């Protein structure tokens, strides 16, 4: 029963009051307004969603081992890829980093006690859960077979699937995004600690700010789109179906006006995470801070004017194609700037290779591949051949899985000691990172070749000459699946059995590392005053200016 102050710092996490043990019971969690607890609520739901979406992917890959379909009927296969896409995009990737790490870290990184609107934050989670439930109901009550893109008039008139439940799920979950984005923008503007100027902010905050802008500006459009889809499907109001007097391409314009920026909702937070990891594990200041920061905003802005590149072969005018092609090349530049700056950050660093760093380096490699293959699709003449094939599938999985999911896992591994107060077995974590990297490449690299050969996506059965590449891809998927299950096991294990982490196990800079792990409910005993820029790691030599 020691209460001496000296003991408090050395005491194991359990005996110190922190956000995890401040109160007990299911009510204390379901009614919490603590951003850190809300992070864990989201983490539980999106992990569940991830494994539902992942299971659908595994079944798809199993089916594609045989050209005639090894497992399921084509109509079932169609439901599998629809569920996989809808769950993974709207109910895992979009909220993944923002709702978990964003929620946990934004107040900690800027030196605040919570987000600007803690109750709104909890409401966001409930709204998201309701949206997820609708999607789950759509899966359990017969499935949806429209693909995650819900193209009309198939979805509005012809599909027999449970389109309304799924669309309603997307509609509802969108409000969660809007509320979260709003909350983050206000928090970043108004709640920064004294001395925390804009250019002292960690780049993760810049990335979350850019993401929040897209949340607030883009998400209403998908809500409108889903609303109109429902209007046509239920009440036969002609909006999209030409048989009812609608325009079938109008849907695609509206859908991609949100869904292309949504790609950046998925990747921008990942870029923010990687900036944190690269600096921490090379003990370096970021190379080109303002270039990395403003490239996030540039990506967010340009992302709203490139949607037409999804529609090069729909019969849109040649001139529209030319404009959207040029703008799509433009969005490649800020991404390239980031990759070069991360690489330059490693120069003369003191680099160590714990699991989070392996994920970060994996991210750079896979994101580079994903970005460069995007040039094939921004180029009009090659897009005509590659659009709608496995090349597209490979390209966006390099960005969304190789990029966003790698960064998410890297971030979870980096901040897990802060979140849980515990260390996980690093050797297992490094092993899992390698398994994910190998499994990922084996799964998706053959798909670039399949696409160039001309195999269309969303095919339940396929000509036999594509079999060898499909088997390779399926083999990779099984390795990838193992790579995702290992961290789930040791992270849960570490919550109970992991050794205490201490406030700063990585020796990293940033306000989140000066408070104990797990942090107390109020984050900081006293609000810190910031006197230095981000990543102010010590220098081994007198600094040279150049």
């Amino acid at each position: 029963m020691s209460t001496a102050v000296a003991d408090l710092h050395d005491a194991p996490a359990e005996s110190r009051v922190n956000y995890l043990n401040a109160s007990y019971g299911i009510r204390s969690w379901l009614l919490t307004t603590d951003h850190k607890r809300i992070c864990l609520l989201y983490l539980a739901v999106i992990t569940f969603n991830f494994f539902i979406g992942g299971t659908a992917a595994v079944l798809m890959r199993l089916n594609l081992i045989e050209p005639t379909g090894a497992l399921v009927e084509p109509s079932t296969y169609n439901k599998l890829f629809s569920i996989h896409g809808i769950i993974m995009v709207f109910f895992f990737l979009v909220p993944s980093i923002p709702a978990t790490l964003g929620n946990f870290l934004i107040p900690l990184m800027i030196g605040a006690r919570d987000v600007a609107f803690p109750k709104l934050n909890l409401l966001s989670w409930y709204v998201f859960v309701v949206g997820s439930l609708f999607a789950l109901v759509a899966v359990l009550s017969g499935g949806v077979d429209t693909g995650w893109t819900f193209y009309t008039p198939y979805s509005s008139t012809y599909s027999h699937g449970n389109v309304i439940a799924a669309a309603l799920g997307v509609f509802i979950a969108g409000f969660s995004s809007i509320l979260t984005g709003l909350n983050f923008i206000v928090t970043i503007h108004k709640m920064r600690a004294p001395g925390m100027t804009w250019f002292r902010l960690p780049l993760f905050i810049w990335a979350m700010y850019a993401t929040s802008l897209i949340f607030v500006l883009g998400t209403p459009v998908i809500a409108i789109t889903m609303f109109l889809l429902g209007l046509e499907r239920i009440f036969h109001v002609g909006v999209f179906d030409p048989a009812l007097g609608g325009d079938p391409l109008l849907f695609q314009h509206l859908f991609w006006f949100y869904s292309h920026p949504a790609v950046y909702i998925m990747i921008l937070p990942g870029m923010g995470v990687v900036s944190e990891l690269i600096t921490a594990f090379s003990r370096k200041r970021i190379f080109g801070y303002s270039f990395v920061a403003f490239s996030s905003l540039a990506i967010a802005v340009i992302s709203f004017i490139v949607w037409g590149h999804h529609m090069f072969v729909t019969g849109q005018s040649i001139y529209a194609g030319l404009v959207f092609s040029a703008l799509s090349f433009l969005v490649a530049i800020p991404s390239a700037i980031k990759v070069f700056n991360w690489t330059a950050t490693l120069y003369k660093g003191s680099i160590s290779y714990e699991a989070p760093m392996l994920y970060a380096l994996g991210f750079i490699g896979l994101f580079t591949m994903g970005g460069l293959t995007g040039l094939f699709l921004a180029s009009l003449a090659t897009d005509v051949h590659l659009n709608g094939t496995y090349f597209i599938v490979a390209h966006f999985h390099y960005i969304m899985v190789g990029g966003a999911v790698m960064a998410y896992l890297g971030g979870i591994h980096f901040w897990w000691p802060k979140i849980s107060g515990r260390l996980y077995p690093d050797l297992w974590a490094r092993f899992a990172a390698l398994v994910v990297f190998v499994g990922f490449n084996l799964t998706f690299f053959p798909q670039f070749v399949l696409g160039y050969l001309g195999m269309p996506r969303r095919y339940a059965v396929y000509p036999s000459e594509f079999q060898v590449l499909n088997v390779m891809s399926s083999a990779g998927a099984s390795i990838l699946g193992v790579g995702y299950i290992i961290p789930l096991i040791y992270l849960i294990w570490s919550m109970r059995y992991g050794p205490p982490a201490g406030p700063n196990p990585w020796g990293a800079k940033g306000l989140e590392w000066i408070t104990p792990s797990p942090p107390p409910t109020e984050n900081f005993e006293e609000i810190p005053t910031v006197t230095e820029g981000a990543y102010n790691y010590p220098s081994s030599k007198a600094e040279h200016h150049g």
Partner: protein
Amino acid sequence: MGLLQSGWNLQVAAAMIPLQPPSASTISGGVDQLYYLLTGITLFFSVLIFSIIFYFMVKYRRRSPDEAAEQSHTNMFLELSWTIIPSLICVVLFVWASDLYVRNSRPPAASTEIFVIGKQWMWHIQHPEGPREINELHVPVGAPVKITMTSQDVIHDFYIPAFRVKKDVLPGRYTSLWFQPTQIGTYHLFCAQYCGADHSQMIGWVYVMAPADYAAWLASGEKTQSMVEQGSQLFTRLGCATCHVAEGNGRGPSLAGLYGKSEKLLTGETRVVDESLMRQAILSPNSILLPNYAPIMPTYKGQMDEEQLSELIAYLKSLAPQQVAQERTQK
């Protein structure tokens, strides 16, 4: 022995991995060149970045737990280089790809026009000479073909990988693509836009034949009327000529020589008369009114199917100004 066996199997498997689709049209060579250029750029930058990262990873690995890094500041020269060089590469790619795309988008004037209707889950193909096919398309080698397409239900996509051509097939309007086959052979035809349960079975074959074989194939089928002839009969049966008098003094405008002409609409908008505009004029005439003509034409929506509509349009397109005059005087 077992190892040898499996090693051999791997070799067989490797030999079975195709890396390139057949290249069988005048378009495919140019697309492949651009593809290889892009692959080269991808390899160059991937190898460059990976090599630098690996080099730094080894050279600057942490040697003692409390080792500090040597800090460096932003280098404006580097920042500008890696902004400007990728931008220039993007400009080159944009110009190259766009030029090729624009050229690939324009069918030669002499193209044979074949009409395609997509429906769940089959391709219906109609040749101007009359023959119809399902999920098979016979074309002669060396001659340009323009495909005009529409869908009876949802959005499909007409894709021939060997020709590197693809275009969505939409309900309620026409889209088109063209190709000129260069190699005799049999090639995949795929639906590349998800269209429901049997999307992956909405596939067929394109047969590229020597001109003589193609002529023989055309002659071998049942004798059918050409699309224009069938369209002409429809034109008479539906009574179109009562108003659309060829000389232009009827209650409706003359349709002679209309295809490809620019028409000024009542709204002031000027539109080029193409298949889609003709379609719109037949199915919802009041949506494109002309000055000097009363809005009295009834809609023909529901009175003919997509096939008949295509025949009627084929007939309207065939109406050159003098031709109609001749037909009139003969009667």
